[in-house]
């Protein structure tokens, strides 16, 4: 029963490589937006939270899951929106005319 773990490890390693390679040279002005954007992406844990919250096992799990859903959603929604706001401002500065 070790197989699934190994597969996960493969996927993990490959994804790490993809992550390393995609971000190479980021100008400092983009640091904050990029951080904010990846932060929103890491809100993917929401998917986990949904599964937990929806599993409907013990009530404790459900409550924990609910809490997790709420804060993960804040992370995702807020994160993406804030990132977009920053980038929008950036765009404007660029093409004022």
């Amino acid at each position, binding site marked *: 029963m070790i197989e699934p773990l190994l597969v996960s490890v493969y996927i993990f390693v490959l994804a790490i490589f993809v*992550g390393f390679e995609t971000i190479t040279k980021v100008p400092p002005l983009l*640091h904050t937006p990029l951080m904010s954007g990846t932060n929103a992406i890491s809100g*993917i844990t929401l998917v986990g939270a949904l599964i937990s919250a929806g599993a409907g096992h013990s009530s404790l799990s459900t409550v924990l899951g609910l809490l997790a859903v*709420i804060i993960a959603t804040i992370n995702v929604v807020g*994160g993406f929106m804030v990132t977009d706001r920053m980038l*929008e401002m950036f765009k404007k500065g660029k093409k004022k005319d």
Partner: protein
Amino acid sequence: MNIIIALAYLLSSILFILGLKNLGSPKTARRGNQLAMSAMLIAIIVTLTKNEILDFTYIIAGLIIGSAIGVIIARKIQMTAMPQMVALFNGLGGGASALVALAEYNRLTGEPRIDVIISMVVSLFIGAVTFTGSLVAFGKLQGLIRSAPVVFKAQRFFNISLFILFLIIGIIVIINPANSTGLLTILAIALILGVLFVMPIGGADMPVVISTLNSCSGLAAAATGFVLSNNILIICGALVGASGFILTRIMCKAMNRSITNIVFGSAGTATTNNSNNDKRKVVSYTEEDASIMLESAQTVIIIPGYGLAVAQAQFALQELVTILINKSINVRYAIHPVAGRMPGHMNVLLAEANVSYDLLFDLGDINDDFQNSDVVLVVGANDVVNPSARSDKDSPLYGMPILNADQARSVIICKRSLSPGYSGADNDLFYLDKTQMIFGDAKESINAIIKLLKA
């Protein structure tokens, strides 16, 4: 059905990767963010259609409450408060991972797989550290906590001890998954460690800390993925973990500091009183910032000085100007009458570089235009832009007319250090908020900017 879900997850993963890629470049960043958003939407919808989910009540409630709060915060927040917002969100992400780990632990039945239990412990630990760490960072940036490093004696030793404690208990829990006290102890240790980790770090280094924590929250999500055997969590978590790591490194390089220096710089050395006092602060920027500033400007004024001659940077400078002009930016040179070391020094230099005379303006002709210009690029000039000449009767420069560089929207200054010019007078311009100092030989700095603009 399962295939469709798996394929949808795969699609979502691909979109996440593309989104992340696009986020890294100024021109595509916004599209990148939108790609990531749709990826997230797909992932959520797919998850909701999964037959693992039995009860939607809490889910819907959670989603609505969370979205509402997220939207409100995102709308209300001031642009200047962005960094603390990112810190806050990041903390929430970490917290969510920790909570999911707890919930899943609670759901455990029978003899769980060892990899699941390991993942759970990791997820819980990293998530919790990220949670309190980010909250402290938020507090520092928001001014709720003293921004200066807070350090107590032997803190480093204490931190390490705590970490070892975590390892021990972790192993115990892994061996005996039923040991819920152990798990809660781990939670407690993680929460404390998060606080201790960030408290000693000064406000100025917070961005790096947040980036590190961001990378951590990615890893926490990946760990959650291992717990749930969910590939998309693993992929996204790994992506964020890796890219966050790279970003941290980039930021450290930009600040000219190493990550260990930041994290362990003051921790455990309570004796040193890190001088983050309110002295005049100079922000050292990189050529990348300068290139972006210049590229997004509409009017640029260039002020050359004696340093241009010393660096023999006139050719590079003119190349830069040509590039900017080709991007339809309005660029002019402002020539101060006594810039350099002999009358007409700048003219000789710029003539060498074949700069068209039409681009040169003398003090009288251009001084009123500074207030309407986006960027002033000062290359090796100092005295001629020193505002103390205007007001400070004790300055050796007092009474000399100067170029009003300080009136521009932003100022980029290329010189090697903070040392004064011919007159020996210190220059307040360097310390303005809108000033970006780029330290280094002018020729090298300009060449670096050119390279970036051409890329």
